[in-house]
Protein backbone atom coordinates (compact mmCIF):
# COMPACT_ATOMS: atom_id res chain seq x y z
CA UNK A 1 0.00 0.00 0.00
CA UNK A 2 1.37 3.43 -0.91
CA UNK A 3 1.95 5.51 2.17
CA UNK A 4 -0.58 8.30 2.46
CA UNK A 5 -0.13 11.88 3.60
CA UNK A 6 -1.09 12.23 7.26
CA UNK A 7 0.62 15.47 8.24
CA UNK A 8 -0.45 18.84 6.84
CA UNK A 9 1.93 21.07 8.73
CA UNK A 10 2.77 24.25 6.85
CA UNK A 11 0.17 23.82 4.09
CA UNK A 12 -1.67 27.04 3.14
CA UNK A 13 -5.43 26.62 3.37
CA UNK A 14 -7.53 29.19 1.53
CA UNK A 15 -10.93 29.57 3.23
CA UNK A 16 -13.61 31.07 0.97
CA UNK A 17 -16.33 31.71 3.53
CA UNK A 18 -17.91 34.79 5.05
CA UNK A 19 -16.80 35.93 8.51
CA UNK A 20 -18.44 34.49 11.61
CA UNK A 21 -18.49 31.55 14.00
CA UNK A 22 -18.00 28.93 11.27
CA UNK A 23 -14.86 30.60 9.95
CA UNK A 24 -13.44 31.20 13.43
CA UNK A 25 -14.04 27.62 14.51
CA UNK A 26 -12.60 26.23 11.28
CA UNK A 27 -9.52 28.46 11.49
CA UNK A 28 -8.85 27.37 15.07
CA UNK A 29 -8.99 23.70 14.16
CA UNK A 30 -6.87 24.10 11.01
CA UNK A 31 -4.21 26.01 12.94
CA UNK A 32 -4.13 23.29 15.60
CA UNK A 33 -3.41 20.85 12.79
CA UNK A 34 -0.43 22.97 11.74
CA UNK A 35 -1.91 24.68 8.65
CA UNK A 36 -1.55 28.32 7.68
CA UNK A 37 -5.03 29.79 7.22
CA UNK A 38 -5.77 32.44 4.58
CA UNK A 39 -9.21 34.03 4.38
CA UNK A 40 -10.98 35.48 1.44
CA UNK A 41 -14.47 36.92 1.24
CA UNK A 42 -16.32 34.74 -1.29
CA UNK A 43 -18.12 37.84 -2.59
CA UNK A 44 -14.83 39.29 -3.81
CA UNK A 45 -13.17 36.52 -5.75
CA UNK A 46 -11.47 38.61 -8.43
CA UNK A 47 -9.12 36.18 -10.14
CA UNK A 48 -5.94 38.15 -9.49
CA UNK A 49 -6.71 38.86 -5.85
CA UNK A 50 -6.63 35.26 -4.57
CA UNK A 51 -3.49 34.42 -2.61
CA UNK A 52 -1.31 31.40 -3.43
CA UNK A 53 -2.35 28.33 -1.49
CA UNK A 54 -2.12 24.51 -1.28
CA UNK A 55 -5.78 23.64 -0.75
CA UNK A 56 -9.17 25.34 -0.81
CA UNK A 57 -12.12 25.16 1.62
CA UNK A 58 -15.13 26.92 0.14
CA UNK A 59 -18.66 27.70 1.23
CA UNK A 60 -20.91 25.42 -0.81
CA UNK A 61 -24.02 27.34 0.33
CA UNK A 62 -22.97 30.59 -1.33
CA UNK A 63 -22.97 31.42 -5.02
CA UNK A 64 -19.21 31.78 -5.46
CA UNK A 65 -18.17 32.68 -9.03
CA UNK A 66 -17.98 29.31 -10.82
CA UNK A 67 -15.06 30.26 -13.08
CA UNK A 68 -12.93 31.01 -10.01
CA UNK A 69 -13.70 27.66 -8.38
CA UNK A 70 -13.16 25.85 -11.69
CA UNK A 71 -9.72 27.37 -11.97
CA UNK A 72 -8.80 26.47 -8.37
CA UNK A 73 -10.18 22.92 -8.74
CA UNK A 74 -7.96 22.31 -11.76
CA UNK A 75 -4.82 22.26 -9.64
CA UNK A 76 -5.74 22.15 -5.94
CA UNK A 77 -7.51 19.83 -3.47
CA UNK A 78 -11.03 21.17 -2.85
CA UNK A 79 -13.07 20.79 0.35
CA UNK A 80 -16.73 21.86 0.37
CA UNK A 81 -18.24 23.39 3.53
CA UNK A 82 -21.81 22.16 3.38
CA UNK A 83 -24.67 23.59 5.44
CA UNK A 84 -27.48 23.18 2.95
CA UNK A 85 -28.27 19.85 1.37
CA UNK A 86 -30.40 21.27 -1.46
CA UNK A 87 -29.50 19.45 -4.70
CA UNK A 88 -28.77 22.73 -6.50
CA UNK A 89 -26.04 23.46 -3.94
CA UNK A 90 -24.67 19.93 -3.94
CA UNK A 91 -24.54 19.93 -7.75
CA UNK A 92 -21.82 22.58 -7.46
CA UNK A 93 -19.87 20.39 -5.07
CA UNK A 94 -19.93 17.63 -7.69
CA UNK A 95 -19.03 20.01 -10.50
CA UNK A 96 -16.00 21.39 -8.68
CA UNK A 97 -14.80 17.83 -8.14
CA UNK A 98 -14.48 18.20 -4.36
CA UNK A 99 -12.27 15.57 -2.85
CA UNK A 100 -14.07 15.81 0.49
CA UNK A 101 -16.44 17.95 2.54
CA UNK A 102 -17.14 19.20 6.07
CA UNK A 103 -20.69 19.58 7.35
CA UNK A 104 -21.72 22.79 9.10
CA UNK A 105 -21.95 23.53 12.00
CA UNK A 106 -18.28 22.61 12.21
CA UNK A 107 -17.16 20.25 15.00
CA UNK A 108 -13.57 19.48 15.86
CA UNK A 109 -14.17 15.98 14.58
CA UNK A 110 -14.27 15.63 10.82
CA UNK A 111 -11.82 18.35 9.79
CA UNK A 112 -8.76 16.08 9.92
CA UNK A 113 -10.56 13.38 7.90
CA UNK A 114 -11.60 15.96 5.30
CA UNK A 115 -7.99 17.22 4.96
CA UNK A 116 -6.61 13.71 4.68
CA UNK A 117 -9.18 12.61 2.10
CA UNK A 118 -8.85 15.80 0.07
CA UNK A 119 -5.05 15.87 -0.17
CA UNK A 120 -4.67 12.15 -0.81
CA UNK A 121 -7.66 12.06 -3.18
CA UNK A 122 -6.17 14.97 -5.13
CA UNK A 123 -2.83 13.19 -5.34
CA UNK A 124 -4.56 10.10 -6.74
CA UNK A 125 -6.45 12.27 -9.20
CA UNK A 126 -3.21 13.84 -10.46
CA UNK A 127 -1.70 10.37 -10.82
CA UNK A 128 -4.73 9.24 -12.87
CA UNK A 129 -4.44 12.35 -15.06
CA UNK A 130 -0.77 11.60 -15.72
CA UNK A 131 -1.61 8.02 -16.67
CA UNK A 132 -4.42 9.13 -19.00
CA UNK A 133 -2.07 11.61 -20.67
CA UNK A 134 0.55 8.94 -21.22
CA UNK A 135 -2.08 6.52 -22.64
CA UNK A 136 -3.32 9.28 -24.90
CA UNK A 137 0.15 9.87 -26.29
CA UNK A 138 0.68 6.18 -26.87
CA UNK A 139 -2.69 5.88 -28.55
CA UNK A 140 -1.82 8.76 -30.86
CA UNK A 141 1.43 7.03 -31.83
CA UNK A 142 -0.27 3.68 -32.46
CA UNK A 143 -0.89 4.32 -36.18
CA UNK A 144 2.72 5.35 -36.74
CA UNK A 145 3.98 2.18 -35.05
CA UNK A 146 1.71 0.00 -37.22
CA UNK A 147 2.87 1.79 -40.34
CA UNK A 148 6.52 1.38 -39.38
CA UNK A 149 6.07 -2.33 -38.69
CA UNK A 150 4.37 -2.79 -42.08
CA UNK A 151 7.19 -0.89 -43.82
CA UNK A 152 9.86 -3.10 -42.23
CA UNK A 153 7.87 -6.25 -43.12
CA UNK A 154 7.68 -5.36 -46.84
CA UNK A 155 11.19 -3.92 -47.00
CA UNK A 156 13.01 -6.79 -45.25
CA UNK A 157 10.56 -9.65 -45.86
CA UNK A 158 10.17 -10.44 -42.16
CA UNK A 159 7.09 -11.36 -40.13
CA UNK A 160 5.21 -8.93 -37.91
CA UNK A 161 6.71 -10.14 -34.62
CA UNK A 162 10.28 -9.81 -35.88
CA UNK A 163 9.58 -6.36 -37.34
CA UNK A 164 8.12 -5.17 -34.05
CA UNK A 165 11.03 -6.67 -32.11
CA UNK A 166 13.50 -4.81 -34.42
CA UNK A 167 11.66 -1.55 -33.83
CA UNK A 168 11.63 -2.05 -30.09
CA UNK A 169 15.34 -2.88 -30.04
CA UNK A 170 16.10 0.26 -32.02
CA UNK A 171 14.04 2.40 -29.63
CA UNK A 172 15.94 0.94 -26.67
CA UNK A 173 19.32 1.55 -28.30
CA UNK A 174 18.43 5.18 -28.97
CA UNK A 175 16.67 5.48 -25.60
CA UNK A 176 13.51 6.92 -27.09
CA UNK A 177 9.84 5.84 -26.94
CA UNK A 178 8.87 3.27 -29.56
CA UNK A 179 6.62 5.86 -31.21
CA UNK A 180 9.67 8.06 -31.91
CA UNK A 181 11.61 5.13 -33.34
CA UNK A 182 8.61 4.38 -35.56
CA UNK A 183 8.53 7.95 -36.83
CA UNK A 184 12.22 7.75 -37.67
CA UNK A 185 11.71 4.50 -39.54
CA UNK A 186 9.06 6.16 -41.68
CA UNK A 187 11.12 9.32 -42.21
CA UNK A 188 14.85 8.84 -41.46
CA UNK A 189 15.37 12.62 -41.53
CA UNK A 190 13.11 13.06 -38.50
CA UNK A 191 15.60 13.09 -35.63
CA UNK A 192 13.97 15.92 -33.64
CA UNK A 193 13.10 13.84 -30.59
CA UNK A 194 16.47 12.15 -30.24
CA UNK A 195 18.72 12.88 -27.25
CA UNK A 196 21.39 15.30 -28.57
CA UNK A 197 24.41 12.92 -28.84
CA UNK A 198 22.42 10.68 -31.22
CA UNK A 199 21.01 13.51 -33.31
CA UNK A 200 22.21 13.68 -36.88
CA UNK A 201 22.76 17.04 -38.52
CA UNK A 202 19.63 18.05 -40.38
CA UNK A 203 19.80 18.22 -44.13
CA UNK A 204 20.12 21.74 -45.37
Amino acid at each position, binding site marked *: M*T*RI*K*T*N*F*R*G*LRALVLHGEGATTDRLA*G*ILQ*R*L*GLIVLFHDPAETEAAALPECDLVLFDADEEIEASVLDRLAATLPMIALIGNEAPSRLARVVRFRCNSHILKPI*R*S*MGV*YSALLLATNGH*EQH*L*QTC*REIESFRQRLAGRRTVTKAVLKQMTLCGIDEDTAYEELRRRAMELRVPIETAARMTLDPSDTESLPSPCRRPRKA
Partner: protein
Amino acid sequence: MSGDTVKVGIMFSLTGSYAAIGAAMRAGADLAIAELNARPDSNLRLESVFADPKGDAAAYADVARRLLTDRGLTHVIGCYTSSSRKEVLPVFEKHDALLWYPSHYEGFESSENVVYTGAAPNQHVLPLASYLLHNHGGRGWFVGSNYVWAWENNRILRETMLAEGGEVLGERYFPVGDTDLEDVVRQIVEDRPDFIFTTLIGESGYQFCRLLRAEAERMGIDQAARMPVASCSLSEAELPHLGAAADGHLSSSVYFSTIETAENARFSALWRERYAHLGNPCADAEATYIAVRLLAGAIERAGDTSFHAVREAVRGLKLDAPQGPVTVDADNLHCAMRPRIGRSRQDGTFDVVFAAQSVAAPDPYLVWSGAEAPDAQSTPHHLKVIR
Protein backbone atom coordinates in the same frame (compact mmCIF):
# COMPACT_ATOMS: atom_id res chain seq x y z
CA MET B 1 -20.97 28.51 44.53
CA SER B 2 -19.22 28.70 47.90
CA GLY B 3 -20.17 25.83 50.16
CA ASP B 4 -21.85 24.02 47.27
CA THR B 5 -21.47 20.35 46.63
CA VAL B 6 -20.69 19.54 43.00
CA LYS B 7 -21.80 16.14 41.76
CA VAL B 8 -19.26 14.45 39.50
CA GLY B 9 -19.92 11.36 37.40
CA ILE B 10 -17.37 8.56 37.74
CA MET B 11 -17.78 6.02 34.93
CA PHE B 12 -15.52 2.96 34.86
CA SER B 13 -15.98 -0.77 34.26
CA LEU B 14 -15.42 -2.88 37.36
CA THR B 15 -16.27 -6.11 35.55
CA GLY B 16 -15.27 -7.32 32.11
CA SER B 17 -11.84 -7.96 30.64
CA TYR B 18 -10.16 -4.72 31.76
CA ALA B 19 -11.75 -4.58 35.24
CA ALA B 20 -8.37 -4.38 37.03
CA ILE B 21 -7.63 -1.02 35.41
CA GLY B 22 -11.19 0.19 35.97
CA ALA B 23 -10.89 -0.49 39.71
CA ALA B 24 -7.55 1.36 39.88
CA MET B 25 -8.98 4.35 37.99
CA ARG B 26 -11.99 4.55 40.27
CA ALA B 27 -9.67 4.41 43.25
CA GLY B 28 -7.64 7.31 41.81
CA ALA B 29 -10.82 9.39 41.51
CA ASP B 30 -12.04 8.49 45.01
CA LEU B 31 -8.66 9.32 46.50
CA ALA B 32 -8.62 12.78 44.89
CA ILE B 33 -12.20 13.50 45.98
CA ALA B 34 -11.51 12.47 49.58
CA GLU B 35 -8.36 14.58 49.64
CA LEU B 36 -10.07 17.67 48.13
CA ASN B 37 -13.05 17.41 50.45
CA ALA B 38 -10.77 17.31 53.49
CA ARG B 39 -9.15 20.66 52.65
CA PRO B 40 -9.87 23.11 55.46
CA ASP B 41 -9.24 26.16 53.24
CA SER B 42 -11.83 25.42 50.53
CA ASN B 43 -15.61 25.27 50.53
CA LEU B 44 -15.77 23.19 47.38
CA ARG B 45 -17.09 19.69 48.02
CA LEU B 46 -17.25 17.01 45.35
CA GLU B 47 -19.69 14.13 45.47
CA SER B 48 -19.16 11.14 43.20
CA VAL B 49 -21.99 9.51 41.27
CA PHE B 50 -20.63 6.16 40.16
CA ALA B 51 -21.78 4.24 37.08
CA ASP B 52 -20.44 0.93 35.72
CA PRO B 53 -20.89 0.09 32.02
CA LYS B 54 -19.42 -3.38 32.77
CA GLY B 55 -16.84 -3.43 30.00
CA ASP B 56 -19.45 -3.35 27.22
CA ALA B 57 -18.49 -0.58 24.75
CA ALA B 58 -22.05 -0.35 23.43
CA ALA B 59 -23.43 0.26 26.94
CA TYR B 60 -21.28 3.33 27.52
CA ALA B 61 -23.41 5.80 25.54
CA ASP B 62 -26.51 4.85 27.48
CA VAL B 63 -24.76 5.01 30.85
CA ALA B 64 -23.33 8.43 29.95
CA ARG B 65 -26.71 9.72 28.75
CA ARG B 66 -28.32 8.70 32.06
CA LEU B 67 -25.60 10.49 34.03
CA LEU B 68 -26.08 13.68 32.01
CA THR B 69 -29.88 13.68 31.76
CA ASP B 70 -31.37 11.71 34.69
CA ARG B 71 -28.73 12.86 37.14
CA GLY B 72 -28.24 16.29 35.51
CA LEU B 73 -24.42 16.13 35.62
CA THR B 74 -22.05 18.31 33.56
CA HIS B 75 -18.73 16.68 34.43
CA VAL B 76 -17.92 13.01 34.12
CA ILE B 77 -14.55 11.40 34.77
CA GLY B 78 -14.51 8.20 32.78
CA CYS B 79 -13.65 5.73 30.01
CA TYR B 80 -10.52 3.63 29.63
CA THR B 81 -10.71 2.29 26.06
CA SER B 82 -10.88 4.48 22.97
CA SER B 83 -13.90 2.54 21.69
CA SER B 84 -15.86 3.54 24.78
CA ARG B 85 -14.76 7.17 24.46
CA LYS B 86 -15.86 7.28 20.82
CA GLU B 87 -19.25 5.85 21.90
CA VAL B 88 -19.90 8.59 24.46
CA LEU B 89 -18.50 11.61 22.57
CA PRO B 90 -21.73 12.49 20.72
CA VAL B 91 -23.65 12.33 24.01
CA PHE B 92 -21.32 14.85 25.64
CA GLU B 93 -21.48 17.14 22.60
CA LYS B 94 -25.25 17.01 22.53
CA HIS B 95 -25.63 17.84 26.22
CA ASP B 96 -22.87 20.47 26.50
CA ALA B 97 -21.01 18.38 29.04
CA LEU B 98 -17.34 17.73 29.68
CA LEU B 99 -15.72 14.29 29.70
CA TRP B 100 -12.51 14.11 31.71
CA TYR B 101 -10.73 11.27 29.95
CA PRO B 102 -8.00 9.90 32.18
CA SER B 103 -6.12 7.42 30.06
CA HIS B 104 -3.26 7.42 27.60
CA TYR B 105 -4.57 6.88 24.07
CA GLU B 106 -3.58 6.74 20.40
CA GLY B 107 -4.39 10.40 19.59
CA PHE B 108 -5.96 11.82 16.42
CA GLU B 109 -8.77 13.45 18.32
CA SER B 110 -9.21 16.83 19.92
CA SER B 111 -12.78 17.27 21.04
CA GLU B 112 -13.97 20.49 22.62
CA ASN B 113 -15.95 18.32 25.05
CA VAL B 114 -13.03 16.34 26.42
CA VAL B 115 -10.12 17.13 28.74
CA TYR B 116 -7.42 14.50 28.14
CA THR B 117 -5.24 13.82 31.19
CA GLY B 118 -3.39 10.72 29.90
CA ALA B 119 -0.48 10.60 27.49
CA ALA B 120 -0.87 11.48 23.79
CA PRO B 121 1.05 9.40 21.19
CA ASN B 122 4.04 11.77 21.06
CA GLN B 123 4.37 11.27 24.81
CA HIS B 124 4.45 7.47 24.81
CA VAL B 125 4.53 5.75 21.38
CA LEU B 126 7.27 7.87 19.80
CA PRO B 127 9.63 7.77 22.82
CA LEU B 128 9.18 3.97 22.95
CA ALA B 129 10.02 3.61 19.24
CA SER B 130 13.22 5.55 19.69
CA TYR B 131 14.18 3.63 22.87
CA LEU B 132 13.62 0.24 21.21
CA LEU B 133 15.62 1.18 18.10
CA HIS B 134 18.58 2.37 20.14
CA ASN B 135 18.60 -0.30 22.84
CA HIS B 136 17.13 -3.48 21.37
CA GLY B 137 17.17 -3.31 17.57
CA GLY B 138 14.78 -2.77 14.69
CA ARG B 139 13.19 -6.21 14.18
CA GLY B 140 9.79 -6.16 15.88
CA TRP B 141 6.78 -8.46 16.19
CA PHE B 142 3.43 -6.67 16.75
CA VAL B 143 0.52 -8.29 18.52
CA GLY B 144 -2.62 -6.49 19.68
CA SER B 145 -6.30 -6.43 20.62
CA ASN B 146 -8.41 -5.86 17.54
CA TYR B 147 -9.48 -2.21 17.90
CA VAL B 148 -8.29 1.31 17.18
CA TRP B 149 -5.81 1.53 20.09
CA ALA B 150 -3.80 -1.32 18.59
CA TRP B 151 -4.22 -0.42 14.92
CA GLU B 152 -3.14 3.17 15.32
CA ASN B 153 -0.26 2.54 17.74
CA ASN B 154 1.02 -0.18 15.43
CA ARG B 155 0.82 2.17 12.45
CA ILE B 156 2.80 4.87 14.27
CA LEU B 157 5.44 2.41 15.49
CA ARG B 158 5.62 0.59 12.13
CA GLU B 159 6.15 3.81 10.15
CA THR B 160 8.76 5.06 12.62
CA MET B 161 10.59 1.70 12.52
CA LEU B 162 10.52 1.40 8.72
CA ALA B 163 11.76 4.98 8.31
CA GLU B 164 14.79 4.05 10.44
CA GLY B 165 15.50 0.87 8.48
CA GLY B 166 13.71 -1.43 10.92
CA GLU B 167 11.50 -4.38 10.05
CA VAL B 168 8.16 -5.76 11.22
CA LEU B 169 8.40 -9.57 11.30
CA GLY B 170 4.72 -10.17 11.99
CA GLU B 171 1.51 -8.44 13.01
CA ARG B 172 -1.54 -10.19 14.49
CA TYR B 173 -4.76 -9.01 16.14
CA PHE B 174 -7.10 -10.82 18.52
CA PRO B 175 -10.60 -10.03 19.84
CA VAL B 176 -10.57 -8.15 23.19
CA GLY B 177 -10.48 -10.80 25.95
CA ASP B 178 -9.20 -13.62 23.68
CA THR B 179 -6.68 -15.85 25.49
CA ASP B 180 -6.15 -18.46 22.80
CA LEU B 181 -2.63 -17.23 21.98
CA GLU B 182 -0.45 -20.36 21.95
CA ASP B 183 0.06 -20.38 18.17
CA VAL B 184 1.15 -16.78 17.85
CA VAL B 185 3.49 -17.17 20.84
CA ARG B 186 5.17 -20.19 19.23
CA GLN B 187 5.54 -18.28 15.96
CA ILE B 188 7.07 -15.27 17.70
CA VAL B 189 9.62 -17.30 19.64
CA GLU B 190 10.54 -19.09 16.42
CA ASP B 191 11.07 -15.75 14.62
CA ARG B 192 13.35 -14.40 17.39
CA PRO B 193 12.50 -10.69 17.05
CA ASP B 194 14.51 -7.97 18.82
CA PHE B 195 11.34 -7.01 20.71
CA ILE B 196 7.62 -7.69 20.80
CA PHE B 197 5.29 -4.70 20.79
CA THR B 198 1.99 -5.58 22.41
CA THR B 199 -1.23 -3.60 22.38
CA LEU B 200 -3.21 -6.50 23.82
CA ILE B 201 -5.30 -5.18 26.67
CA GLY B 202 -6.63 -6.85 29.82
CA GLU B 203 -6.71 -10.67 30.11
CA SER B 204 -5.31 -11.17 26.60
CA GLY B 205 -2.20 -9.19 27.54
CA TYR B 206 -1.63 -11.06 30.81
CA GLN B 207 -2.03 -14.46 29.18
CA PHE B 208 0.29 -13.42 26.34
CA CYS B 209 3.13 -12.49 28.71
CA ARG B 210 2.72 -15.74 30.68
CA LEU B 211 2.67 -17.93 27.56
CA LEU B 212 5.57 -16.10 25.93
CA ARG B 213 7.76 -16.45 29.01
CA ALA B 214 6.93 -20.16 29.29
CA GLU B 215 7.58 -20.87 25.60
CA ALA B 216 10.89 -18.96 25.67
CA GLU B 217 12.01 -20.89 28.75
CA ARG B 218 11.12 -24.16 27.03
CA MET B 219 13.40 -23.10 24.15
CA GLY B 220 16.14 -22.04 26.56
CA ILE B 221 15.83 -18.32 25.71
CA ASP B 222 16.10 -15.51 28.25
CA GLN B 223 12.98 -13.74 26.96
CA ALA B 224 13.25 -10.56 29.07
CA ALA B 225 16.80 -9.91 27.85
CA ARG B 226 16.66 -11.27 24.28
CA MET B 227 13.15 -10.36 23.11
CA PRO B 228 11.51 -8.03 25.64
CA VAL B 229 7.81 -7.27 25.55
CA ALA B 230 7.24 -3.54 25.02
CA SER B 231 3.94 -1.76 25.47
CA CYS B 232 2.34 1.60 26.04
CA SER B 233 -0.19 0.31 28.51
CA LEU B 234 1.32 -2.30 30.87
CA SER B 235 1.06 -0.84 34.36
CA GLU B 236 1.43 -1.61 38.06
CA ALA B 237 -2.25 -2.56 38.24
CA GLU B 238 -1.62 -5.40 35.83
CA LEU B 239 1.72 -6.80 36.98
CA PRO B 240 0.14 -8.89 39.79
CA HIS B 241 -1.94 -10.64 37.09
CA LEU B 242 1.19 -11.81 35.23
CA GLY B 243 2.30 -14.15 38.03
CA ALA B 244 5.89 -15.35 37.64
CA ALA B 245 6.16 -13.57 34.25
CA ALA B 246 5.78 -10.07 35.73
CA ASP B 247 9.38 -8.92 35.36
CA GLY B 248 11.47 -7.63 32.44
CA HIS B 249 8.75 -5.93 30.36
CA LEU B 250 9.16 -2.42 28.97
CA SER B 251 6.38 0.10 29.34
CA SER B 252 6.21 3.67 28.05
CA SER B 253 4.31 5.97 30.37
CA VAL B 254 4.29 9.39 31.99
CA TYR B 255 3.87 7.87 35.47
CA PHE B 256 5.37 4.99 37.44
CA SER B 257 4.83 4.37 41.13
CA THR B 258 8.61 4.52 41.66
CA ILE B 259 9.02 8.12 40.43
CA GLU B 260 10.78 10.12 43.12
CA THR B 261 8.86 13.33 43.80
CA ALA B 262 7.47 14.62 47.08
CA GLU B 263 3.96 14.58 45.61
CA ASN B 264 4.36 10.95 44.56
CA ALA B 265 5.61 9.94 48.01
CA ARG B 266 2.49 11.48 49.53
CA PHE B 267 0.18 10.03 46.85
CA SER B 268 1.69 6.53 47.10
CA ALA B 269 1.46 6.51 50.88
CA LEU B 270 -2.23 7.44 50.75
CA TRP B 271 -2.79 4.83 48.06
CA ARG B 272 -1.11 2.04 50.04
CA GLU B 273 -3.22 2.95 53.08
CA ARG B 274 -6.48 2.51 51.18
CA TYR B 275 -5.88 0.47 48.05
CA ALA B 276 -3.00 -1.89 48.75
CA HIS B 277 -5.24 -4.73 47.52
CA LEU B 278 -5.16 -3.16 44.00
CA GLY B 279 -1.37 -3.32 43.80
CA ASN B 280 0.82 -0.25 43.36
CA PRO B 281 -0.63 2.97 41.92
CA CYS B 282 -0.50 3.02 38.10
CA ALA B 283 -0.51 5.63 35.30
CA ASP B 284 -4.24 5.45 34.64
CA ALA B 285 -5.02 5.78 38.37
CA GLU B 286 -2.72 8.79 38.56
CA ALA B 287 -4.29 10.31 35.42
CA THR B 288 -7.71 9.89 37.03
CA TYR B 289 -6.44 11.49 40.22
CA ILE B 290 -5.08 14.37 38.11
CA ALA B 291 -8.39 14.72 36.24
CA VAL B 292 -10.35 15.21 39.48
CA ARG B 293 -7.80 17.68 40.83
CA LEU B 294 -7.87 19.65 37.55
CA LEU B 295 -11.67 19.67 37.58
CA ALA B 296 -11.68 21.08 41.11
CA GLY B 297 -9.00 23.61 40.16
CA ALA B 298 -10.96 24.75 37.10
CA ILE B 299 -14.21 25.09 39.07
CA GLU B 300 -12.40 27.19 41.65
CA ARG B 301 -10.71 29.29 39.00
CA ALA B 302 -14.00 29.86 37.14
CA GLY B 303 -16.14 30.31 40.25
CA ASP B 304 -18.71 28.36 38.29
CA THR B 305 -19.47 24.73 37.41
CA SER B 306 -20.98 25.24 33.96
CA PHE B 307 -19.51 23.55 30.89
CA HIS B 308 -18.26 26.68 29.11
CA ALA B 309 -16.85 28.37 32.21
CA VAL B 310 -14.97 25.28 33.41
CA ARG B 311 -13.64 24.48 29.93
CA GLU B 312 -12.23 27.99 29.58
CA ALA B 313 -10.79 27.91 33.11
CA VAL B 314 -8.97 24.61 32.61
CA ARG B 315 -6.96 25.98 29.66
CA GLY B 316 -3.39 26.49 30.81
CA LEU B 317 -4.12 25.19 34.33
CA LYS B 318 -1.01 23.86 36.10
CA LEU B 319 -0.80 21.12 38.69
CA ASP B 320 1.97 19.66 40.80
CA ALA B 321 1.08 16.02 40.17
CA PRO B 322 2.68 12.82 41.49
CA GLN B 323 4.52 12.45 38.12
CA GLY B 324 5.77 16.06 38.34
CA PRO B 325 4.43 19.28 36.83
CA VAL B 326 1.43 18.88 34.50
CA THR B 327 -0.05 21.72 32.42
CA VAL B 328 -3.28 21.63 30.41
CA ASP B 329 -2.59 22.80 26.85
CA ALA B 330 -4.69 25.88 26.17
CA ASP B 331 -5.40 24.83 22.56
CA ASN B 332 -6.04 21.09 22.54
CA LEU B 333 -7.00 20.36 26.18
CA HIS B 334 -4.42 17.58 26.43
CA CYS B 335 -1.65 17.80 29.06
CA ALA B 336 2.04 18.61 28.81
CA MET B 337 3.80 15.75 30.60
CA ARG B 338 7.21 14.08 30.82
CA PRO B 339 7.68 10.81 28.86
CA ARG B 340 9.38 7.91 30.63
CA ILE B 341 10.11 4.24 30.03
CA GLY B 342 10.10 1.64 32.80
CA ARG B 343 11.18 -2.01 33.06
CA SER B 344 8.92 -4.14 35.23
CA ARG B 345 10.10 -5.96 38.33
CA GLN B 346 8.79 -9.08 40.02
CA ASP B 347 7.63 -6.98 43.01
CA GLY B 348 4.99 -5.24 40.88
CA THR B 349 6.84 -1.95 40.24
CA PHE B 350 8.95 -0.51 37.42
CA ASP B 351 12.57 0.65 37.28
CA VAL B 352 12.60 3.89 35.29
CA VAL B 353 15.21 3.20 32.57
CA PHE B 354 14.61 6.37 30.55
CA ALA B 355 13.15 9.81 31.28
CA ALA B 356 12.84 12.65 28.77
CA GLN B 357 14.81 15.73 29.76
CA SER B 358 11.68 17.84 30.15
CA VAL B 359 7.92 17.79 29.70
CA ALA B 360 6.64 17.25 26.16
CA ALA B 361 3.81 19.44 24.87
CA PRO B 362 0.88 17.24 23.80
CA ASP B 363 0.69 16.68 20.03
CA PRO B 364 -2.38 14.47 19.49
CA TYR B 365 -2.23 14.63 15.68
CA LEU B 366 1.57 14.27 15.58
CA VAL B 367 1.71 17.54 13.66
CA TRP B 368 4.96 18.71 15.21
CA SER B 369 6.56 15.42 16.28
CA GLY B 370 5.80 13.27 13.22
CA ALA B 371 8.73 12.29 11.04
CA GLU B 372 6.69 12.94 7.95
CA ALA B 373 5.94 16.60 7.55
CA PRO B 374 4.74 17.37 4.00
CA ASP B 375 8.21 18.50 2.95
CA ALA B 376 9.64 15.17 4.09
CA GLN B 377 7.21 13.12 1.97
CA SER B 378 9.13 14.32 -1.00
CA THR B 379 9.26 11.69 -3.74
CA PRO B 380 6.56 12.67 -6.24
CA HIS B 381 4.20 9.82 -7.01
CA HIS B 382 5.08 9.67 -10.69
CA LEU B 383 8.76 9.03 -9.92
CA LYS B 384 10.00 5.64 -8.83
CA VAL B 385 12.75 5.23 -6.25
CA ILE B 386 15.40 2.92 -7.72
CA ARG B 387 17.39 1.06 -5.07
